[in-house]
């Protein structure tokens, strides 16, 4: 198939059209809106067949999604930033109720100040909610991961919400060539959604969402934790089939030029693409550098990352989110993962609120000349 020139948002809308979910609760927020608009148009034109529910808030979007998914309908939605913050309460409950909802997250900075551009603070806000989070580097990956997501979410060992995270504007609004799969191939790949305990199966009534006290709550949470871990194995298991279908392979990480590398940047999302370009240039210049892109942030593939970075002298973690007063989230993850290894660990916060990370910044970072907070005015910050 000829590639199409699509923004990431349009590409995700196409993936949704091809998956053809039963129910899609929607509420607008920049920068994910192109996704739900694109999908709404597909429904209006009869190219997708979902019940589109124009709810009155993101809180209700996720709430309706839980009702719909547990009733037995394949359910998808999308959000960003404040929308995710508003629905955070129910994102936790969706995971706990094991509702296999697929949600595109157009990553955007959290207020305040209010801002519409990319960072990962929204993803990090729900880090511990028990949902799966997969990060795309570009529009193609956003599309591919959306096609993969229902298979992960709906696997009987998983049954969890899966978020496909795509950087706001950088991916959602930038047009790139995207290779779509054939409609029939996507339909066959995702199959039909079936759930063992459907609320609408009145012949087999179940009580879902009960009150669990200290005698049982902990068991619910432990099983949820095991399900998130299982999502990693399910994703691994899908790699061959998806590669046969598309020629593209997805794992929990992408190791880029780690062979013989001494300094490696670890990053999420579109920034990995920028770093790859700089790595190519620096390799030309004889420097032993590489990049490890994390695709599956939750579950975090600790063992794999530890193995890949075992012989790296210097690991540099780029966080597009801050944790004021503590280690930034990805850096903390790497510190735990690499504990006891010989690697030096460095961490930088960058790109908050959509501040661009230029190739020259990446060079500075590799050269260890960059401050902890990259490209911010007025460093060191007056106390």
């Amino acid at each position, binding site marked *: 198939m000829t590639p199409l020139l699509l923004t990431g948002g349009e590409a995700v809308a196409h993936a949704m059209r091809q998956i053809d979910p*039963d*129910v899609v*609760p929607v509420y607008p927020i920049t920068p994910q809106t192109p996704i739900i608009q694109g999908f709404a148009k597909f429904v209006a034109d009869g190219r997708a*067949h*979902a*019940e589109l*529910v*124009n*709810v*009155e*808030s993101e*809180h*209700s*979007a996720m*709430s*309706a*999604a*839980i*009702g*719909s*998914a*547990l*009733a*037995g*309908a394949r*359910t998808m939605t999308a959000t960003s930033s404040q929308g995710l913050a508003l629905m955070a*309460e*129910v994102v936790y*409950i969706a995971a706990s*109720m094991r509702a296999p909802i697929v949600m595109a997250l157009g990553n955007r900075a959290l207020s305040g100040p209010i801002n519409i551009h990319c960072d990962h603070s929204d993803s990090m806000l729900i880090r511990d909610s028990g949902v799966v989070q997969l990060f795309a580097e570009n529009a193609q990956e956003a599309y591919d991961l959306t096609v993969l997501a229902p298979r992960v979410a709906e696997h009987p060992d998983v049954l969890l919400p899966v978020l496909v995270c795509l950087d706001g504007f950088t991916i959602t609004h930038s047009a790139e060539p995207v290779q779509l799969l054939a409609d029939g191939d996507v339909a066959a790949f995702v199959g039909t959604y079936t759930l063992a305990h459907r*609320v*609408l*199966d*009145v*012949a087999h*009534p*179940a*009580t*879902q*969402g*009960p*009150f*669990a*006290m200290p005698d*049982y709550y902990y068991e619910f949470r432990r099983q949820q934790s095991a399900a998130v871990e299982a999502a990693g194995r399910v994703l691994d298991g899908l790699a061959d089939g998806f590669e046969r279908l598309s020629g593209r392979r997805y794992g929990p990480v992408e190791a880029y030029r780690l062979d013989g590398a001494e300094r490696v940047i670890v990053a999420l999302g579109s920034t990995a693409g920028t770093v790859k370009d700089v790595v190519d240039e620096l390799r030309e210049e004889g420097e032993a550098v590489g990049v490890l892109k994390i695709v599956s942030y939750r579950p975090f593939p600790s063992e794999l990352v530890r193995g890949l970075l075992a012989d790296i002298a210097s690991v540099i973690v780029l966080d597009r989110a801050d944790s004021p007063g503590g280690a930034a989230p990805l850096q903390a993850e790497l510190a735990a993962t690499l504990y006891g290894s010989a690697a030096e660990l460095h961490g930088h916060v960058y790109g908050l609120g959509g501040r661009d990370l230029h190739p020259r910044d990446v060079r500075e970072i590799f050269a260890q000349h960059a401050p902890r907070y990259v490209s911010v005015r007025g460093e060191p910050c007056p106390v």
Partner: protein
Amino acid sequence: MSRLKTLVRHQNGVQPLRGGHSLCQGCGIPMVVRTVLSTIDRPTVVVNATGCLEVATTRYPTTAWTVPWLHVAFENAAAVASGVECAQRALRRRHALPSEEEVAVVVFAGDGGTYDIGLQALSGALERGHRFLFVCYDNEAYMNTGIQRSGATPFAASTTTSPAGLESFGKAQRRKDMTAIAVAHHVPYVAQAAAVHWHDLSRKVELAATADGPAFLNVLTDCPLGWGHEPRLSARVLNAAVNTLFWPLYEVLDGGYRLTYIPEPPEPIESWLGLQARFAHLLTDENRALVEEIQRQVNADWDELVARCSADAPAG
């Protein structure tokens, strides 16, 4: 099958909400739930907001429910029901449900989950026109957390967050008219009922459950603990609410108002206030003016309601 036969059949069969739950003695909630669910003559899914009913009937690994039951959170029951209703439509379209019979979607929420924290989700769901029945069991305060005042708490009632004291006569504001708010959404059926008037409630449920769109029932439900009356007096207290015109029974069918019960003659408001400890501080000489004020409010609300009903009455 006739409504009364359905009621009897369900009451003699497996109860949708069985015994063994931990709701208080004298609590009106099970009476409301059983009357509602026993009236509906088709399979039903219950969506429950967080509150007394949810906590007292589903302590894991036990459940008092024999129908499919779903609880997600406090403020979102109407949104969850929206999702279930849309799922039903989508699954029916692709013939993915075992039976062709439409499943009724019924929400139960307290006044907190309806008037206050649940108002936005309810408003959205009413506006979108989902086919579902939202039943508010209105016991006029946050009873599950220990009798805190809500938007449904009546003027001058003493609660744990609007206590009567030397400088306070209880809640300083009037309750909001949630039934009127529901009517303003132009939904096919809205009604106000009381737990103790089971025949009236059951008739309203039948109309609500067959409405082509959202239906809202606001059901006054006693709370012996929060209202401060003996459990054995539930029926007497709820009857007093109706007979003093504090809680008129009426319905709004496709926008047309109709009274469904007219107490003749209405009792003075003291008959309602005097039965409950939450109003005990009002029945003193120095608070006489407050009681008169409550009586004035009740009379004015009644006159306004009667005017709406007459305006809708057929000419001639």
